[in-house]
């Protein structure tokens, strides 16, 4: 009988071995696949059952989780929702989350590996796990001012940076929305609200226009041309460049004109200072044709074109086109055709020039703190690259100051402060243009770089909404 009992034992052990094998298969080898399954609502329940960390601006929560009494323990709430919508994004049950809520999700939910020790302590002390909070570099007053400077109903973006650190002081876009509409716990209400928001002209709830929409830069791109010209060594402050009213191309009908009502018509040749001051098209088109497409492209890349960034939210790559014909290159060089930039990219160009040619990485996050307020991380200023030499930067600064003092951006003048700037008008449609201003101040010790774009406006309105706004933003930063 004992032999049979041993066999029975062997069968029992065989069954246990099978069971251990299948447990290992499910919990180890198949786990990832199962966790990613669409029917698996566990992650969602887990995330929404956790006290997610706050997003803070100057110590005040602009996004926080408050206790709720439904099937989820917490409700995400956005304070001043419209002002910060494009930065926070939303944290939604049925739509995937966006912007900081998405990019910093591991930190906010407390699952980041940098918070491992914190989690272990909580597991054994029985305290509910709580996410870390994220403090932004945003200055709430500047943010509010920038927000007020874009009229309701106007599509536009404003970015304000500290050139020396890359810290973003303000980043606003309109039209905006209320992320609270998408963060409830009733999925049918969320779907309804999302559908209603998608009807709003010019609004995308998924993207931050300041970092994820590409617009034609128009004449502000001439800063890149001027930098390329100086860096090439073939041009200097004395170089005289032909300034015809229109640049003609042999064999075809097209001609690239100078702006009709501007001061360009007063000279047939121009130096770079004058060309920038009056924003003449033909000299810059001429420079681009002389230096070639690659030289412009290279200089653009040195300013950060062609590269995505995570600040930590996504910044899409601005682009300068390639394989161009002569007329296309001429147009691209004055910020038309397929030259496309994000509003943040132009702020980065201005701040690189302001910072002696050294470009700092834009930074939205000041610090990350665990739930017990212990500092987990505080990002240090990071140099991206040397965009232009110090001499080139100084020269460009002088010319930009001249633009504000005597040229197209006189409305940006601030009494007692040397403001450097450049305006732009990109023709985008029959109904209107993109009006730009980008610049920085004070010229000798830059504290603030500004990039403003108002989309699809007529020329007088565009001028009203750019340079004067820059003046107010620069004053506000310098007086804080």
């Amino acid at each position: 009988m004992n032999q049979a009992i041993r066999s029975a034992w062997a069968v029992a052990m065989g069954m246990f071995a099978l069971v251990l094998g299948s447990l290992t298969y499910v919990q180890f080898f198949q786990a990832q696949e199962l966790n990613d399954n669409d029917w698996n609502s566990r992650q969602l329940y887990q995330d929404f059952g956790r006290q997610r960390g706050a997003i803070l601006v100057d110590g005040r929560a602009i996004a926080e989780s408050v206790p709720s009494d439904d099937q989820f323990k917490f409700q995400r709430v956005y304070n001043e929702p419209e002002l910060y919508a494009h930065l926070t994004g939303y944290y939604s049950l049925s739509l995937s989350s966006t912007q900081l809520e998405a990019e910093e999700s591991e930190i906010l939910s407390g699952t980041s590996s940098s918070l491992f020790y914190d989690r272990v302590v909580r597991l054994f002390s029985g305290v509910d796990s709580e996410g870390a909070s994220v403090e932004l570099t945003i200055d709430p007053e500047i943010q509010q001012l920038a927000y007020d400077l874009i009229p309701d109903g106007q599509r536009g973006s404003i970015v304000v940076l500290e050139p020396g650190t890359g810290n973003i002081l303000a980043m606003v876009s309109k039209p905006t929305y209320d992320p609270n509409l998408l963060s409830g716990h009733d999925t049918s209400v969320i779907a309804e609200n999302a559908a209603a928001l998608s009807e709003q002209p010019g609004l995308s709830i998924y993207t931050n226009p300041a970092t994820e929409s590409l617009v034609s830069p128009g004449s502000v791109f001439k800063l890149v041309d001027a930098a390329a010209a100086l860096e090439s060594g073939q041009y200097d402050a004395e170089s005289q460049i032909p300034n015809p009213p229109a640049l003609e191309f042999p064999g075809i009908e097209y001609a690239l004109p100078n702006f009709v009502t501007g001061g360009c018509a007063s000279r047939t040749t121009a130096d770079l200072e004058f060309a920038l001051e009056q924003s003449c098209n033909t000299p810059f088109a001429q420079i681009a044709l002389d230096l070639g497409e690659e030289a412009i492209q290279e200089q653009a890349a040195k300013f950060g074109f062609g590269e995505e960034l995570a600040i930590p939210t996504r910044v899409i790559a601005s682009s300068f086109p390639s394989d161009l014909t002569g007329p296309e290159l001429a147009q691209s060089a004055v910020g038309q055709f397929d030259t496309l930039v994000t509003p943040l990219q132009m702020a980065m160009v201005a701040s690189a020039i302001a910072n002696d040619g050294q470009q700092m990485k834009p930074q939205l996050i000041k610090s990350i703190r665990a739930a017990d307020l212990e500092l987990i991380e505080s990002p240090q200023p990071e140099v991206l690259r040397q965009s232009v030499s110090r001499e080139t930067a100084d020269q460009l600064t002088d010319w930009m100051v001249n633009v504000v003092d005597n040229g197209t951006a006189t409305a940006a003048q601030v009494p007692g402060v040397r403001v450097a700037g450049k305006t732009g008008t990109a023709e985008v449609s029959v109904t209107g243009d993109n009006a730009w201003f980008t610049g920085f101040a004070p010229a000798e010790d830059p504290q603030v770089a500004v990039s403003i774009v108002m989309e699809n406006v007529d020329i007088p309105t565009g001028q009203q909404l750019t340079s004067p706004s820059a003046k107010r933003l620069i004053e506000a930063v310098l007086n804080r």
Partner: protein
Amino acid sequence: MSDVLTVPRSRRTIEFVLLLLALAVAIGANYLAGIGREDAFGDYFWSQALTLGVMGLFIHLILRFRAKYADPVILPIVVALNGIGLAMIHRLDLSAATVNPDFSPVAPQQVLWTAVAIGAAAILLIVLRDHRILRRFTYISLIVSAVLLLLPLTPLGLEINGARIWISVGFGTFQPGEIAKITLAIFFAGYLSTNRDLILLAGKKIGPLQLPRFRDLAPMAAAWLVSIGVLIFQRDLGSSILFFGLFMVMIYVATSRVSWVLIGLAMIGVGVFVALELFSHVALRFDSWINAFAPEVYDRAPGGSAQVVQGLFGLANGGLIGTGLGEGRPDLVTYANSDMIIAALGEELGLIGVVAIVMLYVILVSRGIRAALGTKDGFGKLLACGLSFTIALQCFVVIGGITRLIPLTGLTTPFMSAGGSSLLANWLIVALILLISETARRPAPSGPMKDSFPEAVGVNGRPVKRTTKEGTR
């Protein structure tokens, strides 16, 4: 018959130390489950700790005085399993209460059942003293089994979720089939140990197979009928498999004939085929096993695969190290505290934790089999082996079903799932195995007999009461 040499030491002190360890694990798990969600040292914490502690020590003391050579590992393992189960049931109560404030908790009732079950095991240990007495009740056990199995079909019976295996007993429900598992084991052990020689020697031999005589097939036919009857009338696939597995292993151990196992497997094959053809619920189970991830199968009602798929999600969420007790969402799985408790444990304790639990079962079953090897009487061998094998089979059916190794059937995980009858039955099984292990490990007395009936000395020089019919071989 016995060829296992055991060292004649009582090992009760080791049992005590292991018991303390088991209590630390069980009570610690309960503490972690409750912490942060309620007063960590609330009423439930103390009732779980005290019930397990007092009752566990009570059994330990009984063994110390009445069965001092019983296996020292079995009791601590069972206390640990019981305690971890209570902790998980409590933890699931807390989740359910946050969603539905009117929810009446399951865990306090399970603690009560634990006390009842351990109490019953204690009574069995004290009253029975020697398992061989049960052999006298061979045919009474058969009748009791029949009554227990038929009870749910009487007006007393209740149908829950399509299965008719419960009866209402005033304060709650009871599954008589769980107790029938024991009485049937006793019947088969008694019948087979008595008629074993007859069954072995009679019958034609065809090729390598020694075929049994038709009349000797009677118990196997009875077993088959019981299993199929449970399946047809009570719609309980799990119990049906369990009964049949029990019979198969006992017949095999009694005869050492593979031919019997083959005949048995053929019969169960026919049974499964018929069940698949005739009963939609069995066919649906099969379909939701094979096509668990097909959308039309997932949401189907009844017989959808949502339960097993949610269980798999839970296991996957636990991964290697688990979410930690109270940190996962095992409450998303239906029947998380009974049929699916392994999924809940796998989620919160991780692969590491659930493997540790399975290893406890492995040791428990091995210890039971060791008792079967060690004891000298055929009845005890069959009983210990059959009951131990049942625990292994039950684990296999439950965990295999949850991990989608085999189709999911509704069975409890021994000692852990919420459910009083299962807990009671399993504690009684433990009491029986403890008694058998005692006879297996007890040293043959040497020196002068202490017994006052010197003429009643049995074979092997062991004192046996005259009234016992049992004869050692």
